[in-house]
C-alpha cells in the first residue's frame, strides 16, 4: 500500500480498450522528489504517467491529487496543480515563442479576464528560466529541436504548477541538449522545490538526476528507491535482459551502467550454443551470399542496359 503523498495511485488497472497494460498497480510520487521512471519499451511508463495526469481513466483503482480523487477536480483546477509535457505536441502554424508560452497561462485565465498583469511576468520568467527569452519573437517552426523542447517546457512552467510530469523530455535531442533539459529540471527541483516526474530512456542519466527511481517491467513496478540503493547489475539484467556491469559514475558517484561486451557471442546464442568456429563460418557464409547477390544484380543491370 503506497503511503499518501500529493500524488499517488492505488490498485490501478490501466488499459487501452481491451489490452491491459498494468494491473493492480500502486504508486506514490514522493513530495519534492525528482522521480524518474525507467523500463524497457512498452512497459507502461507513459501509460502510468498518463494515468497520473488524468489523461487516461483507469479501468479500476484511483489516482489521488492533494488528498482528493483527481477525477473529482474540474479540468482547469487540475491544470493549476499539475503540469504535463506530453510526448508529442503540435505547435500551431505561425505561432511565436511568446504566444506559445502564453498558452500555458490558460488554466489561470477566465472568459472575461484573459490577460492579467501576473500573466505577463510569469511568461517572461518562464522563458528566462528555460533560456528562450531572446527567442520570444521568433516563429516556433523555425527553431531547432532543442530550442523547441525548451519552449514547450517554458509553456508548462508558465502553468506554475508545483508538480510537473514530463514524458520523455529528452527524446530527439542531442546529448548536449539532453543535459540542458535535465539540468533545467534539476534546477527546478532544487531551487523551486518542484516535484518532478520524468520518463527517461537513458539509465545513466536517470541514475544521475533522480532522487527517486521507479523501475518498471511489463506494467509492474519492479523496484523503486534512491538509485544508488536499488540499481544493481542483477536488476538491470532482470528488467532489460541485458548483462551489464554497474560502476560508480566518475563525475557524480551515482550508479553507471555499462553493457557487458558481447561481441562474438550473439551468433553463438542464435545458433543455440554452437561453437565459436561455427559462428565465424556463419558470418563468412553471409558475406559470400551478399557478394553473390551484388554480382547477380550487376548482371541484371548489364542485361537491361544491353537490351
Amino acid at each position, binding site marked *: 500500500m503506497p503511503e499518501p503523498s500529493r500524488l499517488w495511485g492505488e490498485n490501478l488497472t490501466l488499459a487501452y480498450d481491451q489490452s491491459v497494460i498494468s494491473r493492480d498497480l500502486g504508486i506514490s510520487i514522493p513530495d519534492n522528489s525528482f522521480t524518474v521512471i525507467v523500463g524497457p519499451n512498452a512497459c507502461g511508463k507513459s501509460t502510468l504517467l498518463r494515468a497520473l495526469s488524468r489523461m487516461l481513466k483507469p479501468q479500476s483503482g484511483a489516482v489521488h491529487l492533494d488528498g482528493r480523487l483527481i477525477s473529482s477536480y474540474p479540468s482547469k483546477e487540475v491544470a493549476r496543480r499539475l503540469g504535463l509535457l506530453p510526448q*508529442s*505536441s503540435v505547435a*500551431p502554424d505561425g505561432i511565436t515563442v511568446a504566444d506559445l508560452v*502564453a*498558452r500555458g497561462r490558460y*488554466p489561470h485565465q477566465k472568459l472575461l479576464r*484573459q490577460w492579467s498583469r501576473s500573466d505577463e*511576468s510569469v511568461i517572461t520568467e518562464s522563458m528566462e528560466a528555460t533560456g528562450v527569452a531572446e527567442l520570444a519573437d521568433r516563429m516556433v517552426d523555425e527553431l531547432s529541436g532543442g530550442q523547441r523542447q525548451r519552449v514547450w517546457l517554458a509553456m508548462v512552467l508558465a502553468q506554475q504548477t508545483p508538480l510537473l510530469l514530463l514524458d520523455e523530455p529528452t527524446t530527439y535531442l542531442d546529448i548536449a541538449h539532453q543535459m540542458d533539459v535535465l539540468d533545467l529540471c534539476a534546477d527546478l527541483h532544487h531551487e523551486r522545490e518542484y516535484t518532478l516526474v520524468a520518463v527517461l530512456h537513458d539509465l545513466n542519466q536517470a541514475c544521475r538526476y533522480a532522487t527517486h527511481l521507479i523501475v518498471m517491467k511489463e506494467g509492474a513496478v519492479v523496484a523503486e528507491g534512491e538509485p544508488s540503493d536499488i540499481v544493481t547489475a542483477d536488476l538491470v539484467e532482470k528488467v532489460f535482459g541485458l548483462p551489464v556491469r554497474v560502476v560508480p559514475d566518475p563525475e557524480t558517484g551515482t550508479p553507471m551502467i555499462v553493457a557487458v561486451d558481447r561481441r562474438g557471442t550473439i551468433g553463438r546464442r542464435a545458433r543455440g550454443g554452437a561453437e565459436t568456429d561455427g559462428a565465424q563460418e556463419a558470418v563468412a557464409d553471409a558475406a559470400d551470399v551478399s557478394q553473390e547477390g551484388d554480382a547477380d544484380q550487376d548482371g541484371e543491370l548489364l542485361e537491361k542496359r544491353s537490351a
Partner: protein
Amino acid sequence: MTATTPRTASPADAPATARGTVRPGRPVRLGRVSFLLRPRTAVVFGVLVAAIAAVFAALLMLGEYEIPLPRVVAALAGTGERLDLFFVRDVRLPRAWAAVLVGASLGVAGAVFQSLSRNPLGSPDIIGFTGGAATGAVLTILVLGGSMLQVSLGAVVGGVATAGLVYLLAMRNGVQGYRLILVGIGISAMLTSVRDYLITRADLTEAKAAQVWMIGSLNARGWSEVIAVAVCMALLLPPLLALGPRLRLMEMGDQSAQALGVPVQRTQAVALLAASALTGAAIAVAGPISFIALAAPQLARRLLRSNGTTLFGAALMGALLLTAADLVAQHAVGDARLPVGAVTAVIGGSYLVWLLYREWRTGRA
C-alpha cells in the same frame, strides 16, 4: 483570484520586458474584464465591418429600381416614398440581412469544423453535411412537392442525419481529423449519386426547382427566414465564441489541450453540435451555398495572421463574402439573376487560390 505580486525586475529580465517581447498585443483592462488586443486584429475587424457595411448599402441601393443613398436612409428611418419603403424595407433589407447572417453562420461553422478536424478541408461542404442537407431537400421537393418550410426541414433533417452518420463512422476515441474527412467525402459521393438518380427520375419543373435549390440562393428571402437564422445565431454564437480559446488549444493536440485543463471530449461534442445546428439553419434558409464555410475561416486567419482559429473573424469574413457574392449575383451579369451559390464558389475560390499562391511564392505556407 491569484494575486501574484509582480516581481521586481531583475537586471536579467529587464531587456525582454523593455522590448515588450512577451506581449502579443496591447493589454486592455476594463474593470474586471481584461484581454489582449493585437493592433492588427483591431484594424482587420474594423476594415471587415466597414466593407460589410458598404456592400450592405449597395445591396439596398441597387436594383431595377435604383434608390440613392439618402433616400435609402430615409426609408430605413421610416420616412420617404411608398415605393422606396417597399423596396428597401420589404424586399432588399431582409435579403441583405439574410446574406449577412447566413454568411456569418457558415463562416463560424466552417471555422469550428476545420479546427476540430485540424484540417482546412474539414468544412461542412467536404464532410457530408451540405450534401446530406441537399439530398434531404431534394427528396422533399420531389416526393412531397415541398413548400419552403418543408424543404427547409427536409434539409435540416438530411444534414443532421448525415452528420450523425459521418461522426459515428469516424468516431474512435474522439474525432480524428483525417478519418472524418475521408468518411465525409465517401458519404458525400454516395449522396451525390442518390440526388442524381432522383433528379433523372423527376419531371422537368421539379428537377429545375431542385437544381436551383442545390446551388443555393437568396432570391425572395423574407423577414421570417431572417428571424429564423437570427434566433439560431443568437442562441449558438455566444457559446461557440466562448469555446474559441479551448478550440485554439485543442489545435495543439488533445493531450496538450487536456494538460492545460481543457475538457477535450466535452468541448468537441458541444462544438460539433452547435456548429452543425448553425450550418443546418444556414442551409435551411439559403440552400447549400458552397465555399463560404471552406474559405472564410482560412481567409480570416491569414488576414489576421493569427496562430489559431478566430471564430469572430470567420463570421465577419463569411458575412462579407456572402453579401459581396449576392451583390455580384444580382447585378453583375446583365439581367440574368444568378443564384448566389454560383458566385460564392468563384469569389471565395479565386481569393483562396490567390492567397495560397502568394504564400507559396513567399515561402510562408
